[in-house]
């Protein structure tokens, strides 16, 4: 890549600044709502920090509500979803990318097809099914649904990524005596880290902020995940906006932290030097 000139750097930073302002501004307004006393969603002024700002809402979250409990529940559920999602997507995507087997095209297309049903229509039968299996009010039910929701995209993603890795690498490994799984696990998986990162991130996001299914499944206050707990503050006409905004921001922090942590691994890179010809 050519070295970027100073002029280009200035242009790049200017563009990035505009996009950052665009991305961040609404978030700033959420912060404003959360530190504003009283319970107002809307305000006339453009000021980010209102005159009588206070952290009361944040404090109330922890003292008046089992916020930490909800957070722990969410971590439990989401953590399992991430682990399961990555495990299942990495293996399934690999098989689809590398091997021809009966049902390959069908699997691929049906993964896609499962996404097309409007989610609101699936809720009722999903609920009935879970009830019949006695999975209502259990985390197992929730985890199964979340993983299945995240899987199609993750499998496609992994498959697409594997497609960009030349098969010659596995060939070399197998010649050296590795089994099929060994070649996958030791050689290909490490190279596919950027895709694994995206899979982990996506699985996390689809479970961490999911509300609708969790609200149907979890019926004991103690078991609430964060989104369900937070919904307590929201109602059509009696929303406690300050608490709602504060909790939304706190909920985003782990997502942002995870992103920060994982972007290190977004640096992929294939060293073509290991294979010649």
């Amino acid at each position, binding site marked *: *890549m*050519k070295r*970027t000139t100073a002029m280009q750097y200035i242009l*790049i930073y200017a*563009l*990035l600044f505009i*996009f950052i302002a665009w*991305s961040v*501004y*609404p978030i700033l307004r*959420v912060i404003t709502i959360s530190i504003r006393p*009283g319970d107002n*969603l*809307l305000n006339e002024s*453009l000021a980010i920090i209102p005159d009588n700002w206070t952290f009361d809402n944040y404090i109330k979250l922890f003292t008046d509500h089992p916020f930490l409990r909800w957070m722990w529940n969410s971590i439990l559920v989401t953590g399992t979803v991430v*682990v399961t999602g990555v495990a299942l997507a990495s293996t*399934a995507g*690999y*098989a*689809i*990318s590398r*091997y021809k087997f*009966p*049902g390959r095209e069908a699997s*691929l*297309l049906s993964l896609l097809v499962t996404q*097309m*049903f*409007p989610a*609101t229509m*699936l809720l*009722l039968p*999903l*609920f*009935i099914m879970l009830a019949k299996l006695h999975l209502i009010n259990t985390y197992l039910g929730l985890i*199964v649904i979340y993983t299945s929701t995240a899987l199609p995209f993750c499998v*496609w993603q992994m498959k697409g990524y594997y497609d*960009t890795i030349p098969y010659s690498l596995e060939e070399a490994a197998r010649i050296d005596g590795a089994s099929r*799984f*060994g070649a996958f696990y030791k050689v290909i998986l490490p190279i596919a880290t950027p895709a694994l990162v*995206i899979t982990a991130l996506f699985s996390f996001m689809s479970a961490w902020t999911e*509300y609708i299914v969790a*609200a*149907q499944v979890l019926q*004991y*206050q103690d078991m609430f995940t964060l*989104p369900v707990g937070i*919904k*307590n*503050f929201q*109602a*059509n*006409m*009696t929303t406690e906006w300050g608490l709602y905004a504060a909790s939304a921001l706190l*909920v*985003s922090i782990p997502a942002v932290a995870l*992103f920060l942590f994982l*972007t290190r691994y*977004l640096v*992929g890179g294939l060293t073509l030097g290991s294979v010649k010809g």
Partner: protein
Amino acid sequence: MLAHITNQSDRYKKTGVLYRVLMFLVMMGFSTFSIADEKPLTLHLWHQRPAPSRAVLNDLILEYEQLHPDIKVEPLYKENEELRMGYQAAAAFTGGGPEILYGPSDFTGALDEMNIIKPLENAFDTAFLKDFDPTGLTYYRDHLYQIGDELGNHLALVWNKRLFADVGLDHAPETLDELIEYGQKLTLDLDGDGVIDQYGLVWNYTEPFFFMPFYSSYGGWVMDENGNPTLDNEAAVKAFQFVVDLRDKYKIIPRECDYDIADSKFNSGRAAMLINGAWAWAKYMESPDVDFGLSVLPLNTETGIYPAPMVATKGYWLNPYLSDRALTESVNLVKFLTSPAAQLAFAQRTSIIPTRYSVRALPEIKNDPVIATSIRQVEYGRAMPVIPEMRAIWDAMRPAYQNVLGGGMTPAEGAAYMQKLAEQKIAELYEGQEESTIWTQIMVIAVYLGGILLALWAIVKLITGFIRPLMNNPQGTVTQNARFAVWMVAPAAIFLFGVVVFPFGYNLVISLSNMGMTTVNSWKIIGFGQYGKVFSDPNFYHFLWRTIVWTVSNVTVHVFVGVCLAMLLNRPLWGKGIIRVLLVLPWAVPSYITALTWRGMFNTDSGAINLILRNLFGMQPIPWLTDATNAFLATIITNIWLGIPFMMVIALGGLQAIPKELYEAAEIDGASGWEQFKKITLPLLKPVMLPAITLGIVWTFNNINVVWLVSNGGQPGDQTHILVSFVYRAAFNLYRYGYAAAFSFVIFLMLAAFSIKFMKRGGATGSAY
């Protein structure tokens, strides 16, 4: 799989993880057990009490549990609509649900049609019921279903004494003419910048429930004694005109005002009068910017009638599927929660009107000025009908009313439209009772035959296409490879199969049935009638086009901007880490709060967008959310904001995978930046981006959240919809399950056909090298 790992440390790590996973599963297994069968009886109470009321309930529950150590009470809060749908799902479809339900009386009709509430005449004796105001006991079809503990939910006039005093007024308006006069005195531009800073009156005037008082003051009402809608009359026309005049002629209400705007303005002292319900008064009483005053809605001198807000009871229903012990204990709990002591607690702490005469007679209640005014207002009010037709009527009033407000219809046209729509929707509510003709019978047979053939075909395909090849030549490499691949795919396949197949099949079956409010448990297959309804509705095509526009504009911008940002970031930059995080924030912060924040930003008078447009570009304020086209644009802008980070992250990952050596080689060969992009970046980015784009198209097409939240459920006038939000509103408000299933199946088929074509054309089923 484990057998393949020969490395010792790998096995150790695997065991550690395996152990932890196992322990976790055991823990979860316990959680299933510990909650199910316990010796003490657990009573579940689902309710929609707002926060201050919840606190009182929780205190009462603690007290009850101390008095009865063998009973545990488990309350669950759900917001009003979710409570209705959640209870229906649990009770009607799975025979479960809580023992006790608490909510507003207007649920009653629909719940009884679905047979999920218990008649209570035998459970509560007349001696107990004598102390209750009859309005506090909900009857339907001659049975008692609900024991109410508070009368309320009614609107009244709230006024800020301090702002009144500032202009020399010391009492609330007593007639509508005074309302206008005072309103004009109180609508002020305090800092002389041409923008009104304080409004005389604010209220959620675009919502039919909040329109009812004025309609009734002209003598109108929603229905006659038989439940037939009575909306096309002189009263409706006059009431429509009155509200429009308040906004355009007398200018005492903001041009755009929904519930939250009215609430915020009044609560922060920027509006002098507010029309809001009993549930909200406590909040204003505590606000430092409000000197709280409550008054009866002013008299309509033209007709001599006081505005009659709708008065509803909130109370307890019982689940019909209760064991004897559960029934006895539930009745006891309800008696406790509606006891004089309990009602007194609620009245004192949340200003509701108790349903018991004995409590109303107590000095603490009789002498409370707020409750006294509230009771007077209730006396002028009228009971909210509890029959299921009411839902249909609200759904009919809303678009007509909002159309009149938006100038799209005259008041007379609006009234006529309301009536027509109400009759149509009531018919839809009771659909499923149609007679079967010879054609439908033929269709039913065809459907069954089709089902059997489909099953046979599936079995044959499974054997020849799947099982046979795997058994063929077991030692050959091809089969070995194939078996390995199938093992790798199996876990994912099982998950997906389990979760998707049943709902899919269920929807398919229901779409061929007549399931509706009256046939929830007695539906039958009727053939393709529902599909006929879907395709013959002009709204279907209108919103289909809208949805296509929505999807294409969103995804194009998402991908274009996302890839550009990724390319900008794909080089050494100072602060790259922070920049990436900031750009990904729209994805990280939950969309329900950011979508609502954007909705606030689009407010015509005080939203950030118009403020910025005015201060930076000197533009006139754009009416975003009250104009159908602009509202649609607003939802697109919000979703664009939400969706860019996702595409950016995918593109970043994809770009990282492209080996630098390729660019270096191209550089040496003298290729320009653009050629490098076209020949190296694009082809190698494609297999990574294509699944994301396809799924992005599918998700955007089906994304109900953003459109719903930004437009507040399709406003103005039910026009800001895409297909999924339209079917959600049209079908779930009126329980048209069969219709909704057919509609969603059609959406599904369209998307399936499109994406399969799209993916095959993009070559995503192959590989890149």
